[in-house]
């Protein structure tokens, strides 16, 4: 019984950690620009696919990962500079459609360049799973959790200890005021997209050995990331992490105990319940509406 529960928990936490990293990407961009970036999943795809294709070309794994993350970062900046910035006067929903257009565009390019097949990436360390109290844990899960934790700590330090991080925070709170005190808000926004893309692509690289990778892997994972961010409360870092883990665990438990047919429905119902009682998610800030 306990082994079973533990197994579902392991499964849920691994996939949940991935959702959390994607959700953090959503949160970062949302904080800086109040845009929901539906192209977030594509950063994840770029991370995995670029690493796979570079290693296939003979580039050593570590270098390939670095290059892939850089590529995603550049893409993030381009996205902000050429798609989001020119449309800054647009409606919220217009911005959503722009990012959806961007994600279709990026996916289309990836399909042209890398083809439509699924690809395998080797585990970072041993293929041998780890056994704990009768449950098994894929060794790659530890990498996902470990790197996820490092990124979260890194982000916290970045926002509280560095000038750039503080500038992003300031911009998110009040763009005009930030500009008045001399923050170059355009640069800050580009930075937010860069960091978000880096987060997404790192997530894409670490989960690729578990999920495989292909040009269209970002669609569903990106969407789940958005769901996780909304559960946690948009704009909240802790919210993104908790929301991601919660979503992953609920999915796994629902698949194990309730019905695998309806596990996604259970997850989506959970959002409705959470939002019913907490209209701004678990950790969302109460914002006074300006009239």
């Amino acid at each position, binding site marked *: 019984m306990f082994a079973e529960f533990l197994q579902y928990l392991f499964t849920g936490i691994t996939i949940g950690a991935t959702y959390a990293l994607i959700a953090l990407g959503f949160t970062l961009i949302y904080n800086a620009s109040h845009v929901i970036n539906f192209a977030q999943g594509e950063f994840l795809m770029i991370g995995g696919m670029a690493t796979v294709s570079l290693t296939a070309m003979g580039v050593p794994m570590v270098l390939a990962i670095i290059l892939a993350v850089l590529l995603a970062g550049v893409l993030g900046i381009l996205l902000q500079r050429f798609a989001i910035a020119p449309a800054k006067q647009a409606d919220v929903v217009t911005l959503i459609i722009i990012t959806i257009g961007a994600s279709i565009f990026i996916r289309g390019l990836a399909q042209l360049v890398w083809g439509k097949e699924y690809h395998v990436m080797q585990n970072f360390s041993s293929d041998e799973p780890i056994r704990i109290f009768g449950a098994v844990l894929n060794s790659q899960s530890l990498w996902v959790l470990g790197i996820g934790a490092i990124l979260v700590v890194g982000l916290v330090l970045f926002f509280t200890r560095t000038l750039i991080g503080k500038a992003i925070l300031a911009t998110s709170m009040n763009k005009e005021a930030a500009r008045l005190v001399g923050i170059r808000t355009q640069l800050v926004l580009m930075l937010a997209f860069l960091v978000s893309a880096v987060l997404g692509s790192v997530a894409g690289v670490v989960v690729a050995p*578990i*999920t*495989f990778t292909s040009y*269209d892997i970002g669609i569903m994972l990106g969407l789940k990331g958005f769901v996780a961010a909304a559960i946690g409360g948009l704009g909240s870092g802790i919210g993104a992490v908790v929301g991601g883990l919660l979503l992953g665990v609920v999915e796994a*438990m629902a698949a194990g105990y309730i019905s695998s*047919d309806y596990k996604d429905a259970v997850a989506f119902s959970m959002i409705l319940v959470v939002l019913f009682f907490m209209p701004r998610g678990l950790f969302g800030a109460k914002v006074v509406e300006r009239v």
Partner: protein
Amino acid sequence: MLKTILRRTGQVAAIAAAGLVMSAQAAEPIKIGSFLSVTGPASFLGDPELKTLEMYVEKINEDGGVLGRPLELIHYDDVGNASNARNFASRLIRSDRVDIIVGGSTTGATMAAVPLVEQAKVPFISLAGAVVITNPVKKWVFKTPQTDRMAAERILTDMKDRGITRFGLISGTGGFGSSGRTQTLDVVEQMGMEVVADVTYSGSDTDMTAQLTNIRNTDGVEAVLNFGFGQGPAIVTRNYAQLGMELPFYQSHGVASDSFLELAGDAAEGVRLPASPLLVPDSLPDDDPQKQVVQDYKAEYEARWDSKVSTFGAYAYDGLMLAVQAIEAAGSTDKEAVREALENIQGYVGVTGVFNMSPEDHNGLEADSFRILEVQNGEWKLIN
């Protein structure tokens, strides 16, 4: 519009040039229409299917065409979406006015086009698997892959031969897995076997450990069968190995391609599945009638596209060849004549199997056209 005009002009020019030698009628191309899931979640079906069609239409034209007329392939990408498939079928029939349709990568896409095809009275050879496509028989609809019901029968027979009667079923919630699950549950009853655990996963799931744990903890499971296609079954296979499950493990023909071996890696060791002989061309006995055609298709495809053959591309090969054979037998592209010729094709030796069509059977294959294969040392091995 412009394209059509250009095409027409081209035809007129061609006809004028050949006018002295041939009659105008003879140079008019035979239009083969196709809608396939070349991109989207079912692209692993549509992509090799399109490559196969393109390649063999070219080849047939080099060899002088059919009835002295060249073939013209008109194809659209339905992205795995049934509504698109229906619209493109409508375009093929009403705008492009094709003579025959060879296409429909998925059952959903095929079935969405069926009402249209039946009304417009155009012969349609589907490349999708589910039994509903040809059972009950639809006058104008044929198909080349074996039905999922045959796959279930073949797998369950093999299980029974190994003394297994109670097994756990895991299936995808997509069309292929869902229909496969229904057929399996149906066949199980007839064969006096029992499905003791029945779980599903959706096409975009990235971890199926929870579902497999559920099966593992069910009492009396003697084997596990996974009905699904795409990358899902490969993940299931890897999770199966990670959980250390030792029971005999069966997959469906939905993963019968070399990319499954690549994705699943060592975890695929010992997996059994029903598949077309295409995966083991050299293991076939020399007196097997399919040996030659299978070897040729594999060699030609791999030489032309520099990628591995897949069972799915072979469905398109058989579809095209059946169409050509029917048009030749009919002596024209008259739709009713072609349909009737299709219905009467006997003993066509294809890559997928030997086809014996009849008015009652628009698939023409037997369950034993599936070979049972097992993965041994990272390669397909013919079991029977």
